[in-house]
């Protein structure tokens, strides 16, 4: 049995994979290799062909019209990226900073306006807290993933 661990859209999830002959099983589903595709027999007996591809630590899976994205974690590692830092979703330019250090914000407050891909994007607080740092000012270029602001959450 092999353990795999992922960060998905919600909480980290663990997968306990079992191998039986040429097949792999998990949660009642069964997988066999089918050329370059993955043949999956769901717990309900229906058969689907999946596509999977990996880039960096992320597995992308297409199954029955749905696409899933799973970031792999080394077993034992903790979830990343939940430190209250707000990162740039893509390279772009800061158009406007809407908050100051020390300011209290509530979830949904606009914090910054970025321009990327010829569109404006608002960076919005996902939880209430106090702004502890603003790392860029208007007209700064930001790299993708750059931490834009820090917020200390008020729970």
């Amino acid at each position, binding site marked *: 049995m092999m353990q795999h661990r992922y*960060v998905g859209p919600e909480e980290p999830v663990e997968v306990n994979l079992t191998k039986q002959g040429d097949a*792999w*099983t998990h949660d009642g589903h069964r*997988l066999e290799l089918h050329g370059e595709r993955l043949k999956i027999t769901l717990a309900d007996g229906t058969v689907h062909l999946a596509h999977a591809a990996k880039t960096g630590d*992320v597995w992308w899976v297409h199954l029955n*019209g749905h696409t899933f994205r799973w970031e792999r974690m080394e077993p034992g590692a903790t979830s990343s990226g939940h430190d209250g830092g707000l990162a740039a979703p893509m390279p772009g330019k800061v158009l406007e900073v809407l908050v100051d250090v020390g300011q209290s914000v509530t979830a*949904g407050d606009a914090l910054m306006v970025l321009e990327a891909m010829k569109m*404006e994007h608002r*960076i*919005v607080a996902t939880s209430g807290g106090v702004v502890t740092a603003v790392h860029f000012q208007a007209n700064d270029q930001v790299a993708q993933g750059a931490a834009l602001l820090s917020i200390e959450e008020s729970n």
Partner: protein
Amino acid sequence: MSINVLVANRGEIACRVLRACKEAGIGTVAVCAPNDEGSLFTELADRVVVLQGDTIATTYLDQAQIIEAARSTGATAVHPGFGFLSERADFARAVSEAGLIWIGPSPEAIEKMGDKMTARQTMRAAGVPVIPGEEVEETDETDALQALREAANRVGYPLLLKASSGGGGKGMRAVHDPAEFEQAALGARREAVAAFGDGRIYIERLLSGSKHVEIQVLADSHGRTIHLGERECSVQRRHQKVFEEAPGPTMTPALREAMGSAAVAAAQAVDYVGAGTVEFLLAPTGEFFFLEMNTRIQVEHPVTELVTGVDIVREQLRIAKGEPMACGDLMIRGHAIEVRLYAEDAANGFLPSIGPLLVFRPPEGPGLRLDTGVREGDEVTPNYDPMLAKLIVWAPSREEALQKMRRALDEFVVLGTTTNIRFLRELCDVAEVVSGNTTTTTIDDVWPHGWTPQVDETLLSASLLAASAAESLGLNRQSTRGASGDLSDGLNPFQTISRRFP
């Protein structure tokens, strides 16, 4: 007359035009920015000129460089596609003054229609109904804001702020409450200045519950101006169309005749030559109002091609050569639907996404058309518009077209970059879409708090099996195209992002 065409564009529309030229036996030149070298469209041209520059302004918007590229390669005509310089009257004029054929209407027609305020005034004069609203001509920001606020109070809320030089949803804001007005007006002006170098804003009453219906027109230099029927493009997200169809699901022959005649009158009012689109808002009352005229080929032209049997790009080429149009009388058959595939996170406020197209497998089978500028192994970068492809279906009936679209979207596999495929697929099941009773606010009405995918827990769990087994099997599939070393690291836009953007 024989011509050689330079295509002053990139991506899927460049591919569309280059292929049409090749079929017509017309020589072609592509121009591309350095970061587009090797893109699909550059492979379809007889010759490629790499524009020197590292921004859009210094490449695809650099008129002098593009005209010089035409001159140096012996091109005799310029096709602007859509976006970029396609609606720039000064470019059309510069092209003509360089002794080249401009594949589009005259600079004067572009000017009259391109400035949305002037267009509204021209249409009013030609007897074409326009949306109640006001044009504000001030250019000083403070004066403009003051004038806009006063005009807004006369027009009444809810209202729309629109950039006079705008298009594609840029520089546009809906304002429902006077309290939101100032921030919206400033944002619209800023976006308009950034995108078009022109911050002028006008105001239209927001006609809620309306449909966006547009009429394709064609006019040649032999005095023939016709329309090719309507496209309905009501289904929009952030004022940008994502689902377009022809014919309109609620259209009647009488209304088509009335709107078609208005569109032809609009074109004739500016002595239009070439392909263009007159956009209308169709109110629930059956009244229709001129929105704007796009003086160029449109993204959604394929649905008209499929139901009318007219090759609009080939007709553009004929018209540019001074020939009469080849198409006959309007003959609409069956039903066509187009969806726009974007590299975007539909569950996250339609935020554009980037990344490698590790897998890009379009669906196959009869009745499908894919217009795209990318292929497996390409990168989606933040440099350009995030539209990856247009998937278009044709079937004898609207019901069958929707069935075909569902099947096609289910089979479309794109891995490595977040796309809106699943959003489009769910859209096909929305009651308003199924019945055809869509309006410009349908998406907001159906998903007032933003779209979230309906995830099947069984599939979710099985996808974890797939990822884990693939990992254990060592199927760390990487694209073998391009600089594959680049794909495995550094290009994942999501690594540190675990929150949602509204």
